[in-house]
Structures are given as structure tokens and as C-alpha cells.
């Protein structure tokens, strides 16, 4: 019980710290300075002839991330397959 109270206090402190940090990032919902995203929004159609800007970013501008992401999925599949493979090797 004591542990839980302590943890609650810790959570509140961490939340306070986070709130402080977040409020300094940029005002919520306002038009922040975002040159990179504006570049995507303006040029994605012209450069890559894609309507869906998110897809353009995922598969083109940051395509290498997506390759990595597919690799993570492949890794997980391989691991699960390796874990549940047939046969046993003893201890």
C-alpha cells in the first residue's frame, strides 16, 4: 500500500515534468512552424504523383523506414516460427 502511494506521487511528479516539457514544444493545434511537412504537402503530388501524402511519406520519402518496418515484422514472424517449431532438442 505504501508502495502504491509512493508510486502515485512519482507518477504525478513525472506527469508534471512532462506537462512542462510539452507546453514548451509548441502551442497545441496552432499552425506551428513546420517546413518539412509543408514541403511534403506541397510537393508530394508534383514529384511523386501521389494523392495520399501519408503514403507518399511512408513509401517514398521515408521508404527505408518502411523496409525496416517490414523487416521487423518478418523478424517477429521468424521468431514466432522458431519458438513454436516442431521437435525438441532437450535441455
Amino acid at each position, binding site marked *: 500500500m505504501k508502495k502504491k502511494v509512493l508510486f502515485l506521487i512519482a507518477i504525478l511528479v513525472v506527469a508534471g515534468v512532462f506537462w512542462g516539457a510539452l507546453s514548451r514544444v509548441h502551442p497545441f493545434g496552432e499552425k506551428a512552424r513546420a517546413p518539412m*511537412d509543408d514541403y511534403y504537402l506541397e510537393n508530394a503530388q508534383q514529384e511523386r504523383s501521389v494523392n495520399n*501524402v*501519408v503514403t507518399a511519406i511512408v513509401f517514398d520519402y*521515408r521508404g527505408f523506414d518502411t523496409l525496416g518496418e517490414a523487416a*521487423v515484422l518478418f523478424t*517477429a514472424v521468424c521468431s514466432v516460427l522458431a519458438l513454436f517449431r516442431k521437435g525438441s532438442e532437450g535441455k
Partner: protein
Amino acid sequence: MGMYAILFERNLIKIAIGITLLEASANLFLIVLGYRTGGSIPVFTLAGEVRSMVLPTPQALTLTAIVIGLATSALLLSLIMLLYRHYGTLDVREIRRLRG
């Protein structure tokens, strides 16, 4: 909440839930960063008149992060299944063969 579950719960499944909570919160944080008031989705197909669009990059990043989180939790659950098979319990206090 996620950290609480990871640190104090004794059931492996609940630890896994804690980890997924942590992932969800990180993803939500990323998405929130890209919000613009009155923005529409960044897709031009049949979009109508567009004033401003929300930032697309956080969405792309979150998409990647979600898939990674999915892979991690799939592996986590299968490890839990294996542990259950070996020990017959999901209580972390009883799964303590590696010590010191």
C-alpha cells in the same frame, strides 16, 4: 499506468498489457504533435476544398511505430505462452531460475 503495471503486477499477461499501454501512449503523443486546428486528412483524393491539412509526418512515423509495436507484442505473447508451458504458472514470483 503502463509503467505501474510493468513494475508492480505479478501476472505476466498484465505486464504485457502494461507494455502495450506504454506503446499506445507513445504513439498518441506522436500523433498529437502533428495536429492543426481545423486541419483535414492529408489525402487529396476527392478532398473538396482544403484549407489546411494536419502534418503528415507524425502519421507516417506512428504507422511504422504501430507495426513495430504489433510485432513486439506478438513475440511477447508467444514468449509468455512458452513460459507458461515450462512453469505452469504466470506468476513472476515463481519464475525465478536465473539469479545472481
